[in-house]
């Protein structure tokens, strides 16, 4: 606090701020008429705090910039992302209530705002002591944080204006370079306990809010929308207001050079949920989009598989209990249950069902297909029998085309934007010159490209592959019948296939080696690889993650048999 006057009533210097932005003495609760300048409204999602003209915003720098904190930047990012999601059809509640509250809670818990003495204050102490300008050379910073006495008083949820008010004057001679006030702090390693904010984490926040509201978007879809540009992520900083100058270490925080990784966003989300001490999330019931029964239906359609398979996926789901509310609903902080990846799980269920019915050993499925083909020749009534071979050919062709398109798109991806980034003022002119040259070259060669300029990004769609029953070429398999692979036994329809092969007999310890099982392409049949590849494409994740879920499901499904086998083995040994 830079208000150092003594209280008129009790002569103490111990000030706080009221909701109205006035100083009050904490000792005797005397309210003064002195007010504090307040953060500009732009930075805050839904507050309408007026700027007070008395005393301008902290030292307007020469270049027209102002002081800003990293979390303000992230707040802006989240705001943009929420708006984009709203435009995609997510309910406005997400932006205005859920996400906002999550964010505030986070700020409070990580002591960046909404508390008496946020961590940012330590910047002053640090910068005065630090002489090196290179953050990299000194990763293990001696914790001056611990040396300075921080009064970790309870933070009450004050109004939004507490941002600026609770930060002390930052030394002008900050030697670690960043446009933001606390950029250097953010990159310090000892922030682990406090779950430092990163760009991928913004998506964790979004996903968490979406999950809370049980919106019909899976994580893989969310990430795909990000890559396709429907949700701000890459170069989102270009929406920061002019006054917020980005340079130096800020670039390492806000500039992204990789697409978000499913695992990372997923894991961070769970860490976050625990960190924020959130209660049990709203129940995922069988009428929710994220329930495996629903997602299986969607993926079956997208994979051009017969609708009849849905009965089977539901049976598997029921049998192993992954449709139960308690299994599906997120309970933050519960370390014993395995975290549910709804999309991957649903895909894995389909893979297991295909293995149940078709075996997928590079032999049996083709045999069945030939058999079905024969029967189809004489089949005049009802829908055609499902032929694996035909399905494979149709889907493979489409998949290859789409994969090729995707690969080209990835190679043509443009990472930079108009807003120039420079590490320091020194190389600003060099950066601008380079940018100019890049633009010139893009124009020159763009003209020689012949084809139309890069088309506007396509409308976001939930389905990447679509198959129409109206096509007369028989390329849609939704209505096909599974009669060719099923038989009736005691009034029940069972698979003709009597066998099943397990992906792995023993599951690994996920915590130790990161995976439940290890997927090496050469060790598994081509058909299995193809099916994994199909869903890997749809979900934009590595096949090994689907493989993990498949292993997990198989072990649940054949639990008794496996258990018996193990028991039998031990008995023998005796």
């Amino acid at each position: 606090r830079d208000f150092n006057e003594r209280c008129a009533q009790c002569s103490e210097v111990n000030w706080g701020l009221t909701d109205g932005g006035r100083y009050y003495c904490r000792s005797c609760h005397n309210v003064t008429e002195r007010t504090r300048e307040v953060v500009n409204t732009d930075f805050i999602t839904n507050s309408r705090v007026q700027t007070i003209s008395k005393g301008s915003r902290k030292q307007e720098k020469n270049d027209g910039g102002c002081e800003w904190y990293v979390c303000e930047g992230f707040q802006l990012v989240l705001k943009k992302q929420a708006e984009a999601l709203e435009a995609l059809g997510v309910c406005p509640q997400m932006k205005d209530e859920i996400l906002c509250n999550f964010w505030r809670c986070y700020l409070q818990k990580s002591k960046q705002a909404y508390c008496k003495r946020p961590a940012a204050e330590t910047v002053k102490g640090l910068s005065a002591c630090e002489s090196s300008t290179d953050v990299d050379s000194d990763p293990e910073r001696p914790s001056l944080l611990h040396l300075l006495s921080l009064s970790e008083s309870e933070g009450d949820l004050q109004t939004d204006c507490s941002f600026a008010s609770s930060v002390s004057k930052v030394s002008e001679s900050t030697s670690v370079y960043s446009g933001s006030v606390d950029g250097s702090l953010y990159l310090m390693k000892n922030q682990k306990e406090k779950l430092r904010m990163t760009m991928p984490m913004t998506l964790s926040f979004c996903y968490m809010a979406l999950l809370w509201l049980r919106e019909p978007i899976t994580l893989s879809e969310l990430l795909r929308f990000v890559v396709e540009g429907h949700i701000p992520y890459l170069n989102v900083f270009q929406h920061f207001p002019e006054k917020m100058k980005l340079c130096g270490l800020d670039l390492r925080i806000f500039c992204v050079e990789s697409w978000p990784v499913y695992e990372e966003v997923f894991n961070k989300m769970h860490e976050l949920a625990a960190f924020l001490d959130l209660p049990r999330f709203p129940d995922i019931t069988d009428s929710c989009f994220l329930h495996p029964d629903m997602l299986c239906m969607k993926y079956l359609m997208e994979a051009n598989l017969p609708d009849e398979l849905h009965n089977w996926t539901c049976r598997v789901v029921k049998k192993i209990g992954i449709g139960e509310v308690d299994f599906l609903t997120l309970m933050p902080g519960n370390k014993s249950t395995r975290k549910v990846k709804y999309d991957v799980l649903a895909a894995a269920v389909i893979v297991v069902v295909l293995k149940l019915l078709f075996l997928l050993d590079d032999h049996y499925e083709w045999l069945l297909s030939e058999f079905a083909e024969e029967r189809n020749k004489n089949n005049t009534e009802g829908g055609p029998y499902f032929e694996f071979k035909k399905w494979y050919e149709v889907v493979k062709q489409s998949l290859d085309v789409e994969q090729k398109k995707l690969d080209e798109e990835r190679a043509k991806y443009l990472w930079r934007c108009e807003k120039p980034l420079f590490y320091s003022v020194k190389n600003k002119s060099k950066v601008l010159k380079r940018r100019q040259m890049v633009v010139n070259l893009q124009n020159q060669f763009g003209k020689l490209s012949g084809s139309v300029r890069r088309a506007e990004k396509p409308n976001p769609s939930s389905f990447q592959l679509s198959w129409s029953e109206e096509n007369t070429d028989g390329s849609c398999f939704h209505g096909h019948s599974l009669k060719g692979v099923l038989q009736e036994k005691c009034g029940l329809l069972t698979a003709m296939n009597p066998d099943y092969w397990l992906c792995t007999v023993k599951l690994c310890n996920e915590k130790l080696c990161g995976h439940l099982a290890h997927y090496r392409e050469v060790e598994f049949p081509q058909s299995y690889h193809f099916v994994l590849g199909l869903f890997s494409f749809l979900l934009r994740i590595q096949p090994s993650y689907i493989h993990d879920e498949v292993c997990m499901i198989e072990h649940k499904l054949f639990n008794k048999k496996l258990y018996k086998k193990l028991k039998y083995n031990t008995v023998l040994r005796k």
Partner: protein
Amino acid sequence: SSHEHKSNFRKSKEACLSYIQDALLQKQWKRAAEFLTCYVESLEKDYSREHVGPSEMIWRIGTEILWHHSQSSMKEFNCFMEQMKTLGVKRYLKVCLEHVFHLLCNGQIEEAYQNLSLAESWRFGEQTAIQDKEMKLVEAYRGLLDYYSWSKQKNILLEHSEDGFSDLAVEREMHGYFRKAAVNLKEIIKIPGVWDVFVKCYVDLLEFYGDHNEARQVLNEYAYNSKFPANPNAHVYLYQFLKRQGESKKSLISALKILHDIVPSHELMIDFNTMLQKSKKRKKRRLGLEVIFATLDYAGWKENAKTWSCLARQVKQIVISEKHLDWIKQEWSSRKDWWPAFHFSRYLAKRNWQEDKSLSYEKALVAGILLGKDCKYFKYVSHQGCKAQLKRFRMLKKFVNRHNPVYLRISG
């Protein structure tokens, strides 16, 4: 945790490059341009650890595309090259040189000269010393263009002198170009390297102005200095110079000796053999035989009547004199396993007879001596020749029949 050490940015740019490469190899210039447009933003990223950075990539790829693309103009090309010159100071002179080459390919000699002059006057701190080699090249090429101008003036002068005019202005200009050219050309050929075009031009200048000693010295250096890479052309130039100077057979032969060692199939080997055959020294004649046999080991001379006639002449001469049959035996011993199929098959006999009677005549003579009168080639050709009532073939038949025992001694 991810095992990727490279960001997706890097990976996608790498992928972009491989698409460009594919497009270039298939001459799809539009597609290459499309992907290059996406690649250029790599310039904004630091690649200092990479071996070849984006600026060099863009320079090389962009040059290819602009050179071949149908809608690209010289103006655009030049503009692009100027941009590339500013991109990497460490490559400045290289880019200048390549630009000059392209201008020359396009026939823009004036512009090329201007660019070279500009490049010559470039100075950039310590880079000037580091790029010393490139600078020498720049100077050498400017010298070359000066030679070209000299040559033009010379032709004008010759024309005028024919018409009876004497043109002092042209003469002065010509001498001016000579001086400029000579200085630079002399410099570059001092450095070990392959400088064929510079050497030729320099020697041309020296000869014109009558400085034959200097010319000889230059050519000797170029051919015999071991620091210079082995270069058959150096010997060819020296030989041609000596011939022009009317040097003795002895020095001509010594000039061609090394050429025979390096390139036994060289076209000058025929001249070489002709000289050697006529020599009085036995060693030289022996060498001649070796040379001509070696030449015919190469497919390029299979159908060359002149070459075969040289061999035939020498072989015939040896057979008639009955001296030195062992020479033929020596040469034939390493060839008797494969020459018959290579030169003297029945198929070739038919074809040679159809296409070139002289060729078949010479070859038949050689075949008859080396393989005897019963060999396929000789039998066919001589039969055809006698049938066609050609006198020389009748003579040939008689000759070979008479000397048939020779074959037995050779093949032994």
